[in-house]
């Protein structure tokens, strides 16, 4: 990959910061034309005064010596070189190491992602245009960062330093060499400090590549990407707009927009009681990160029990499984919504897909019951019909010859399909959602297809 792509990344990241800075407001106390030496000086002066005043107010009247020192320290000619020295203690980043472990020391980076990945895969490059930069390092030097984020003429001081702007140089010092040194120091804010380094507390993964060799990959935490997502989820959960929409729904009222819920989001905390130790944005997130759930469907499955007290599993037991109920509801809503739409390939596909998902659940349920000790259907308290016994307790045939011959006959398979079809049809045709004749005919076709597949599957089981 060579060196050049890295330079390209940094250019991308810089341009995105510039875009952001356009939105920042101009300080109102500047009367000089924006971007001029005078306006930069005024902005810097205002910034320093704002920081100096609270410190002066804390002093007791007799502490005159301290007062003089403070006044000296906050003269631009003294404060700016000191800030240029301290800028080495902080770094502006998009990817930070310390989220992996607070004691990890090593490189953090400022990169707007890897655009070669493409727009259909999500990474930092996906939001490159809206990246919020993070800062890591010594929290005592954060005032330097605030200074560099000051906006003059639509650009930040950091932007101006990075481009060695002549107006900024003149504002910094009459000594051109000194001004250049200061700007170079400030411009280094986005650069990784020292030689590239990882840490024993950092993650490092061996990734196999062609020809029996490896690349060592060190994942860094994409704090800027995460920040955008965190803000978005918080807005969706807690903003006034979301609350208004929730209230409207509760009261059955109309509303110009809906809202979102994020079920089963998990919160991971970084930095304990000192989120600032990890990074500036981590502190703004209260040390929290929202993690979206990537769970399998069976993560909340209840214990499997033999269906003894029922004649058929479909209505009460299978039909009341949460996933089955949800799928039936989706299918019902869909059938109602397309009731007058006639039929087309999209409707047919979607209907078949939904019916297929419900059939999948039937197979899952049967497979769960087959994990029970075989022979449960022979218990005297078992009221289950013969066909479903054959389907759900197949291994009983090994110990029970009568049962084995009943299974051998095979007509139970048609019976299972019939029962499944009847159950599903009954669920979908209720007084509130009567099925029109045309719709019912389409639906029977779908069901016939499903039943054929189900029969093959059940028969193929042996």
């Amino acid at each position, binding site marked *: 990959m060579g060196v050049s792509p890295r330079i390209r990344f940094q250019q991308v990241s810089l341009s995105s910061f510039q875009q952001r800075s356009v939105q920042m407001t101009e300080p109102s106390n500047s009367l000089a034309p924006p971007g001029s030496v005078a306006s930069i000086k005024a902005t810097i002066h205002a910034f320093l005064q704002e920081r100096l005043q609270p410190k002066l107010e804390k002093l007791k009247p007799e502490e005159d010596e301290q007062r003089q020192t403070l006044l000296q320290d906050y003269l631009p000619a003294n404060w700016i070189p000191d800030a240029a020295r301290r800028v080495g203690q902080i770094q502006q980043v998009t*990817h930070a190491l310390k989220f992996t472990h607070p004691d990890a020391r090593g490189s953090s980076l400022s990169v707007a992602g890897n655009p070669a990945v493409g727009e*259909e895969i999500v990474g*930092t490059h996906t939001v490159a245009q809206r990246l919020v930069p993070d800062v890591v390092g010594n929290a005592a030097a954060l005032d330097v960062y605030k200074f560099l984020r000051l906006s003059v003429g639509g650009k930040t001081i950091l932007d101006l330093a990075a481009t060695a702007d002549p107006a900024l140089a003149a504002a910094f010092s009459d000594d051109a060499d000194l001004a250049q040194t200061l700007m170079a120091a400030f411009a280094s804010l986005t650069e990784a400090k020292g030689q590239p380094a990882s840490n024993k507390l950092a993650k490092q993964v061996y990734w196999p590549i062609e020809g029996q060799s490896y690349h060592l990959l060190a994942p860094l935490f994409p704090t800027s*990407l995460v920040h955008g997502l965190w803000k978005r989820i918080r807005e969706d959960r807690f903003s006034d707009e979301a609350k208004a*929409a929730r209230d409207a729904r509760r009261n059955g009222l109309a509303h110009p*927009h809906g809202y979102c819920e*994020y079920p089963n989001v998990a919160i991971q905390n970084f930095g304990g009681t000192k989120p600032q130790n990890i990074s500036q944005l981590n502190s703004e997130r209260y040390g929290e990160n929202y993690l979206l759930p990537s769970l399998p469907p069976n993560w909340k499955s209840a214990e499997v029990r033999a269906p003894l007290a029922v004649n058929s599993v479909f209505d009460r037991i299978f039909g009341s499984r949460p996933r089955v109920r949800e799928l039936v509801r989706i299918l019902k809503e869909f059938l109602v919504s397309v009731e007058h739409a006639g039929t087309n390939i999209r409707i047919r596909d979607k209907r078949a897909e939904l019916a297929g998902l419900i059939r999948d659940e039937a197979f899952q349920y049967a497979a769960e019951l087959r994990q029970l000790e075989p022979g449960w259907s022979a218990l005297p308290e078992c009221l289950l019909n013969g066909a479903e016994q054959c389907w759900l307790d197949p291994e009983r045939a090994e110990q029970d010859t009568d049962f084995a011959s009943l299974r051998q006959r095979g007509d139970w398979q048609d019976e299972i399909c019939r029962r499944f079809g009847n159950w599903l049809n009954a669920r979908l045709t209720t007084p509130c959602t009567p099925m029109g004749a045309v719709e019912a005919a389409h639906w029977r076709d779908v069901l016939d297809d499903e039943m054929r597949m189900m029969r093959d599957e059940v028969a193929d089981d042996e």
Partner: protein
Amino acid sequence: MSDVFALVLLPHLKVQNANAISGPLTWGFPSPTAFAGFAHALERKFAAELDEGFAGVGIICHHFEPQVFQPPGRRTQVFRLTRNPVGKDGGTLALVEEGRAHMEVSLVIAVRDYKSDGDGKDLAERLHHAAQGMRLAGGSLLHQAGKRYQAQWWPLAGDVEGDARIFRRLRRRLLPGFALVQRDDLLAGHLDEMRATQPDSNALDALLDLSRLNIEPVVSQADEADAPVKWEIRRKPGWLVPLPIGYGGISPLYAPGEVENARDAATPFRFVESLYSLGEWVSPHRLNDLSQLLWTQETDAANGIYRCINRYSESLANFKEQQNG
């Protein structure tokens, strides 16, 4: 998958304390990279007798029990944490939150090498034995006795029809459970849909939209003005999840030894970030052929892209074409 000779089924592996934080944006089931890495480590142990090696690994989850807790009155989950040993001075160490989960998974490993039936069964058993001494997604494998847990050797037939028959039989062995597949096609399709109304949408917007519940008022042409407005949850039928699928490089590839504190000084080094796509949990009998089940690792070193790939949607498109055509 004409280059696959046989499948090894490692059924119902019980894993304790697997890593449940799969990336910076997701928690839950471990990333496919963890399973691909596990298969690769296993392959390395048998390098002497496998000239051609593995062609991928299928991931099926039978049971999943995350170690999380929902605090009263909250709508979010937190991780149950462990109390770790104290430092040298007796003080507590920095708390690094880890998420853990217990799970039961089956792995289907595609083997390229020819083996006789006897050798194949023997190989499957030894693979299983070796696997039990390894870590899977950071968790440890518990030993399970019984026929249900024995490794199985499934030689393929070598012709399309025979392979299909064998694959159908295998699918049923994977029930009850769900196979993890990649649905980058649905993500791309949803992005297109969103862009029709919001042109500046990106893949993260699409992924987020598919990962949450969207509750919207139903716009109706109702005549009665006072009738209560119906609200509706926009539902997605499949079980779709955001899924970390690998890494994208964010630095140049450094020469071996150039980066301080690397795990070794002989391997090129690169800083990366996690990449995300959309995944789906499907019932195994949804899978039409082996290629829909398998995950493989692919590298584009020039562009710094390190991905796990599953070809479910690709085969799905082909399959539909065949059926319609």
